[in-house]
């Protein structure tokens, strides 16, 4: 009986060590590289907009393609935030108006903020399992970066 249990344990261990472990390590490294690639693409885009103060349709397309070419399926939102002060019952408050249509993005004024939000879409079942059961995944990948044009 113990011989049989030994064999079963051995097979399970072989499966874990030779199949599951390399897969997990490879997945985790690919995931890390993809995240860093997206971060670099987004920061490059912000740096460009900071310098040129203009966002064209071509720039947006390039950003979407570059982010999605990293290996993750992501949605990218680009917003321009215009700083303004309003009088609210005699108290002056600073607010930021968000503009995300292409016309509003084409000519950005110096001092405006450009914000990029990246959200992962279409997470695979295996990743969902890894997040819910093994807890070695961070779940939906989402982050923002914002820079001031000037």
């Amino acid at each position, binding site marked *: 009986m*113990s011989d049989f249990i030994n064999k079963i344990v051995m097979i399970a261990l072989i499966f874990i060590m030779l199949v599951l472990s390399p897969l997990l390590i490879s997945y985790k490294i690919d995931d890390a590289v993809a*995240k860093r690639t997206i*971060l670099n693409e987004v920061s490059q885009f912000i740096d460009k907009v900071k310098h040129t103060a203009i966002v064209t349709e071509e720039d947006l397309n390039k950003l979407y393609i570059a982010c999605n070419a990293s290996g993750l399926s992501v949605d990218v939102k680009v917003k321009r*935030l215009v700083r303004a002060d309003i009088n609210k019952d005699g108290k002056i408050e*600073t607010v930021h108006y968000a503009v995300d249509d292409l016309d509003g993005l084409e000519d950005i004024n110096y001092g405006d*903020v450009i*914000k990029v939000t990246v959200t992962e879409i279409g997470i695979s079942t295996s990743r969902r399992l890894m997040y819910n059961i093994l807890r070695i995944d961070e779940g939906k990948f989402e982050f923002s970066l914002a*820079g001031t044009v000037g």
Partner: protein
Amino acid sequence: MRVWGAIFNIFAVLMMLLMSFAFLNLTRVLDRDFDQARLNKAVEYSTEATFINTLEIEDIGLDYTDIEAIEINTGNSLDIFETMMCFNYDLSVHEENKKLIEDSVATMVLSCNDGFYIIQDIYNDTGKGEYLLRWSPKIPYLYDDGSNKYAFNVVKQKWAKVSGSGDIEMPLEEGYPPGISHDKVLEVLNEQITRNIYVEIENRNANRDIFQYKFFLPAETTRAGVNPISGPGILTLIQGARFASKEMIGTVSVSGYKVVEKVNVVAFTEKIDGVDKKFYCYEGQMDIDDIDTKYKVKNYYRDTRTAAKEEYSPHFGLMTKKITKR
């Protein structure tokens, strides 16, 4: 044989545990690496936004043309830094969130031509009785040689001296006092700022969080690329950011900016075959004798893109020349 099988299994289980531990550590390192890179970017962008807001230019002609005319005003710069950090981390711009970001600001220094501002922890006993971050009054760059005290303006290279007997000397011409070089002044001011950063971080540690001070300002650019403070600039140190990751990021994020002279784009016309052709090049590329004779300057632009939009073409003959303004 059966015993050997069991021994191998136990050995394999131990190996697997070791590998699992290594794997979990790897995932933590990879996640932390991303969070750290993102924090660095966020601090960089927020510091830049803060610095843009503090600059005041006395010269109403072209912006950034006269480096001596730049003044720094702290104003609401801390608020702008916190707002930008909120944008970078998708936090609502609210006092509570701003406070969370404030808690991770180890120090911030705004250096000017003749002094600097530093972030200080101030106890506010009028409201809830809490510690708040506020800019200090301007601290002048001072040097004490034992018998005299000197205050410097590092950009205009001017100085004032208070001797031991209380006499004040303030020459109008540029240059440093005899025996004191520009390098010595840079060494003194960087040492003074480093000392103040150290004192303020110690104060913050006594009041609230623990910041580990591991930063120094060199007198000249180091091999690792750390620049000294040598004029208008900003320096931000963030440590212990709780909002940036699942776990607190303990490492220091440093970001700094300084004012450099901007090279504008000059739009001009040149007569070729009797026709005025529109061209552009950078400031400092034209021969001074050719201005208003060969080339008629029409306008200045911030970048080549705007010049191209106004239908000016690059003057390849001039564009390859060295920019002499810097």
